[in-house]
């Protein structure tokens, strides 16, 4: 799951460049990888690709601020 999320992030926000210094635990917002519209693109991707329906109150930095957090969230939802 982390690989799928990471691939999306790299393709969509990092111009396709897989930068090894960008860790799966790094905060999207702190590292400036994603801006506010970017979070929406990420949610679209999860909903489309992984069949998850993201509820309003789940759109938190707890769930959506790093590759690892997003992967864990999706896994919880589809479990």
């Amino acid at each position, binding site marked *: 799951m982390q690989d799928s999320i990471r691939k999306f992030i790299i393709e969509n926000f990092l111009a396709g460049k897989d930068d090894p210094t960008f860790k799966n635990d790094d905060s999207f917002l702190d590292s400036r990888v994603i801006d506010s519209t970017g979070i929406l*693109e990420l949610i679209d991707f999860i909903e489309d690709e992984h069949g998850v329906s993201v509820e309003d109150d789940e759109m938190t930095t707890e769930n959506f601020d790093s590759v690892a957090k997003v992967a864990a969230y999706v896994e919880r939802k589809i479990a």
Partner: protein
Amino acid sequence: MCGIAGFIDYQRPVSTDILKAMTRRLYHRGPDAFGLRMQGKAALGHSRLSIIDLTTGDQPMGEPGGRWWLTYNGEVYNYIELRAELEARGHVFHTTCDTEVVLHQLMEYGPAGLEAMNGQWAIALWDNREESLLLARDRFGIRPLHYWRGPRGIVFASEIKALMAHPDVPREMDNESLLQVFRYWTCLPGRTVFKGIRELKAGHWAKLTRDGWTEQRWWRLPFGQTPTEMTEDEAADIVREKLRTATSLRLRADVPVGAYVSGGIDSSLLAALIKDENPGMKTFSIRFADQVFDETGYQNQMAEHLGSDHHHITVSGSDIASAFPRLVRHAEKPVLRTAPTPLMLLAEKVRSEGIKVVLTGEGADEVMAGYDLFKDAKIRHWWARRPESRLRPLLLSRLYPTSPLLAKAGRADYLHKYYGRWIDNPADRGFSHRPRWDTIVGVLGNYLSPDLGSALANWEGWDSEYLDGLPVGFDDWGQLDKAQLLEAETLLGGYLLSSQGDRPAMAHSVEGRFPYLDPEFVAAAAKIPWRRRLPVLHEKQALKGAARGVIPDQIMDRPKQPYMAPDAPSFFGDDSPAWVGEMLATERIDGLGLFDSAAVGTLVSKLSRKRRGQIGFRDNMLLVGILSTQYLVHEFLEGGLEPTGDEIFREAVPLGS
């Protein structure tokens, strides 16, 4: 309005052919007359758009003694009053033109004479006795002036394309200045995106002599003053009356003056204030084929209220894509939005209706505190007093109701994290502008070639380059005054008045006039307490008070709509013009060596799959910025620059040489 060009060579005889080649490149700015003057070490050129004294106002203009020679682009609206004062001091005038007044004003007072001048100008004055050149620019930088200093003297011109007709002037990109555009929407004051080529900063003059170069600021936006206490009504009255005077002064011309009507309050108020003085006025609007950007209903309502002779153009995404190269050629720097392009198309319409001069509303948002950015900064300042608060940042969602993320309830979390980045340092001089300036910087490096990317290393130094030069006492100013100054000196001067102002209008020899930038209006506005400018989160309160009752309530009470045009999606799809593919082709990107072709390819394929509304600000700005840079370099470095399409140059006829 006009174009000026020239050079000083202290060592070699000056060449008429070079001057002619330079001035020819400004034909679009002034197609009515063409003048060249060789005077000692100086070559002065002028392309004229006749507005005041149509018969005898030709330039370059000399005084009878033959010592002083002037080439000047602009208007000084209070020339009648200045002339009377000069006559009282013994000056004799031979024309009714403001040019002659400027010449005598500077002869009498030197650069100190600029302060009395109310208007917009780029000036070059040659003193043949002292062999010195004075360059000067208006307060806000409405009219452009660029120069290149070489070992033998100087080359100057309204536009860079004219400078580059001089064989000494290099054609090379300045990578740091180029990248600054991706941060500030313009390079910082004084810079251009070309190496060695400078712009004279707004509100500055400079003097070249055989011994050296002096540059001095003569005006700065008078914010940071102790406000005058006043009621809401008093503030509204001051704004209305000062604005009426400023607008009325800008009707001085020997040709009819038109007005732009966007459908918003700022432009509507100008036209309404002078409708009785300017009967039968022609007004002009941009409509968009795409409803999201369109304001036709409000524009028509306003035109009906004015009883004006109203004209419009309707612009589609494909119109923008076809005209965009021409816009870049005129703007002479990259742009991050396509919005300047429709203004160029509108200028074409204005000209075809026989109008050379239009009133326009730029400056209202900066001077009267209209932008969301000011509210954004205000909320963040308030939040910074309690940085741990989870509720204070929630107010930000009021500002961005169209952002689906921020509109959802319970987004305190994101707001806190995203905007909280800057919250610990409210004393930071750039506090108000950080969110905008940082929009792209986190990802920009991915799209750059290693060579251009290395110029990104110093981006924090760019901030200091500007912020360290702020006025003495700035740190003690109120936060709104600070934000307004920054906005006026960066985005207004370098982008709105330039890439989206003078350049697209002068592409079709149309002169914009800006009542909101009248020095007396601005001085009065700066004394209005911030509570009257931006109480709570009510933008432009004093201006709205002034407009209430003067323009229809429907315009007053409509939701504010920032002027925007179809962006990235315009360039893709079935009717995408060939130039887009050419500029974004891998070989061309690699050949120019500025961007990373694989990264740009990823961006393009992402964006071309999406429709409007699905594309974020950041991706949009990246695409438009990269595309405009590619075209700019093609045009300016690969030998374009000769007249194309609608710009047919006449054979130059030297006057008075």
